């Protein structure tokens, strides 16, 4: 099973029925599989804070949801994570491409990469970092943990994990 198939099958196995995405080159494959999945309603969002709002609504409507986004978008969603997801205590798995790490060809991506973990740490968001392909084996447990604790949880996935892009 490919990494992308494994990710989506874990989402489905954890009853995640709605996924909102803002694309990243690294995430193109997993987004294609989300779009093709019969078990997931896929909503492309125009901005990540909008996507998190949709996820919050879906949770209140009784459906589990997740967001797939790029790490640069942490600069967009701080207020939403704090005043919506955390303030109202809602679960939110965030599958995040970790641009700006080893193998990155675009210098500007490094500028947000150096702030990524610091921001997540400041927001007290439990954070996991997938660097090797086998790290994906933890995804199922991370999803269960997210819905157990009703918090946003970040899964950073770097270029080494995606085998370049």
């Amino acid at each position, binding site marked *: 099973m490919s990494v992308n198939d494994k990710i989506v099958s874990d989402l489905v196995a954890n009853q995640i029925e*709605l996924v909102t995405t803002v694309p990243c080159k690294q995430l193109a494959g997993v987004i294609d599989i989300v779009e093709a999945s019969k078990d997931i309603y896929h909503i492309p969002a125009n901005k990540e804070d909008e996507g*998190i709002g949709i996820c919050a609504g879906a949770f209140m*409507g009784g459906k589990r949801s997740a967001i797939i986004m790029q790490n640069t978008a942490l600069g967009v969603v701080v207020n939403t994570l704090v*005043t919506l997801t955390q303030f*109202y205590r809602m679960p939110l798995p965030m599958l995040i491409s970790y641009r700006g790490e080893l193998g990155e060809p675009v210098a500007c991506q490094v500028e947000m990469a150096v702030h990524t973990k610091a921001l997540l740490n400041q927001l007290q968001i439990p954070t996991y970092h997938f660097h090797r392909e086998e790290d994906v084996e933890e995804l199922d447990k991370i999803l269960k943990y997210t819905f157990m604790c009703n918090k946003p949880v970040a899964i950073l996935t770097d270029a080494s994990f995606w085998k370049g892009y």
Partner: protein
Amino acid sequence: MIRSDVLKELIPVISDQFIVCNIGLPSQELHLLDDQPTNFYMLGTMGLASSIGLGVALAQKEKVIAIDGDGSVLTNFGTLPTIANNVADNFILLIIDNGSYGSTGDQPTYAGKKTSLAAVARACGCENVVECRAEDTVEVMKEALAGDKMTIIVCKCESGNIPVPVITKDPVVIRDRFMTTLAARNG
């Protein structure tokens, strides 16, 4: 008519409906006038009432009304294409358009100038957009509720506010009673 007059007139029609209400004075006014477990008050996060409302509507069967403002829709403009392309026929977006940022001191918005939110919503692909005078909002809302068709209502009203206390209810309580009532109504 100002926003609180519109809300007051709407209450007999929307009191038992599931409502996601915009941050600041709209939520505070609704809370003061008619606090219900079916009301979800946004205490933060300007702009996301329509996104949260869409999410609730897509996830279950009951009708959902998002009460938004012109300033908040302008803040989250990307919401209109998303709503247009993910049709939820149990979703009504009521934009109370008073042409100003009411909660922050009535600073004018572009919706009160050249920009027509109804025209923008149509251009984004929303198929059922109704712009109405404040005085006609109750009738338009009744029709939308009877219609089983996703509807965007742009209610043009005057700028102005009434004094209202802030909401001190715990956010988790607000969220939990909304979810519990919604789950029960879905059976």
